[in-house]
């Protein structure tokens, strides 16, 4: 593959347009409140601008953004007290736009332990492959597969 240098400053706005929604959705599933998701979203792209990393491919750029998003979410989660607010309280549109079955499923997905939740969200909702998720989360592909498998088992138990 021909190497190319993709600098953060070259196309900052385009990057926000392209990956902003992906970063925000992932943040929503991890922190579960709108304010925290807003913070993570802004912090990820601010860091991206400040560090000005250079990437060989567009895929590297995306993986970097996802990885940093997860780090910020983890940091935020460990530094705040456990909230009882749910994603549905914060995003009322979810209640109106999704049918009952999907609301139940989403509730179950969001109730999964964080690592399983991330794997299930990225695979089933965002459509990434296990190989891509492994690269984004810097884990072995076998770890991602086992998390998907255990996540599905937990979902099955929760929905029965």
């Amino acid at each position: 593959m021909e190497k190319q240098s993709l600098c953060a400053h070259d196309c900052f706005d385009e990057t926000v347009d392209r990956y902003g929604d992906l970063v925000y959705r992932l943040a929503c599933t991890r922190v579960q409140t709108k304010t925290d998701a807003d913070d993570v979203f802004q912090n990820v792209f601010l860091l991206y601008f400040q560090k000005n990393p250079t990437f060989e491919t567009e895929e590297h750029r995306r993986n970097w953004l996802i990885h940093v998003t997860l780090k910020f979410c983890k940091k935020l989660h460990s530094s705040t007290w456990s909230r009882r607010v749910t994603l549905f309280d914060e995003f009322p549109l979810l209640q109106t736009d999704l049918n009952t079955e999907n609301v139940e499923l989403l509730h179950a997905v969001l109730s999964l332990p964080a690592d399983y939740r991330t794997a299930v969200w990225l695979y089933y909702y965002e459509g990434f492959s296990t190989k891509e998720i492994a690269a984004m989360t810097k884990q072995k592909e076998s770890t991602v597969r086992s998390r998907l498998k255990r996540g599905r088992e937990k979902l099955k138990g929760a929905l029965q």
Partner: protein
Amino acid sequence: MNGEQRGALFKALRPDDETVRALKEKVKATQPAPRRKLLPVAVAAALVLITAIGVWLTLRNHQTPPKIEPSDPIVTTTQPPETVPTNPDGSVNFSDLTVDGAAWPSVPQSSGTASIVSFSEYAVKGCDLCFEGTVTDVQLKQYDYRYYYGEKFGKEVIIHEQPITQLTTFRIEKVWHGDPTLVGTTITLEDDTRGLDGKFGYREGVCYVVLMQDVTGWNIDMWHPVGEERLLEGDIKRSSPYATHYPWQPQVEKAKTGDYIVPLSWETVTAGCDVKVVFDPETPYFGSVQELEWFSDRLRLVDADTFQTRMAALLAE
């Protein structure tokens, strides 16, 4: 969840305009990373360092007479062992290095393809156990089962599988990474021959450097791990909870000369080692040796000392 519902979900979970606007204002007020400012400092530091090394070498050469250093281990690996015949191109034959009569188990060849990640030698620390051991027993086991398989995009089929696994028992002689008390014990790995593909199966009597993973809780069907699968008939319980970490290439083999036959994907271990190992007609392979030709250009002979040093360096990183 269908496309419409996914669209609704994604539409609801978007940063609002105010959040994006606030981000862009913060970015405007933020200075970019001082990457370019660091560059002159780095260049200056490098120049100072180079000058200092130059001065030190000059002083050193004036103070001590030049002496003949023992040859670099990398250089020695470009020469095959004297006891092994060499081909005109400098390569050595696999059959001259491997244990006499150690034949591959005969298993059906796989024609399937899979998306396989490339091997990284740093797996020596990432795997659950890295050991050196001699194969004391090889058994093949055939499974027979049917299962329902549904992909996330709606494909639903019933699959009849009859995979063959290779159960390989090793006597552990050295532990490179993991529990050192395992030396002297035996361990059995179970590998699906669809992954091993016959070409890389372990052979009885041969000593290998094995990267092992613990797959406790996995069943034998590892091929559709992310679909919705349901066993309909048969037994899929593995006989061993241990498997080869990366089965899609020949494993590192200890030659009877004491050197190691190593795939090129072990980049730092094979660096500078020019002696190719080729699969010659005497290779105890059950099929046509032509099938192994692809690997003839990708195996190197690494002498024992170099191998030990470089493995230690890999583990120390």
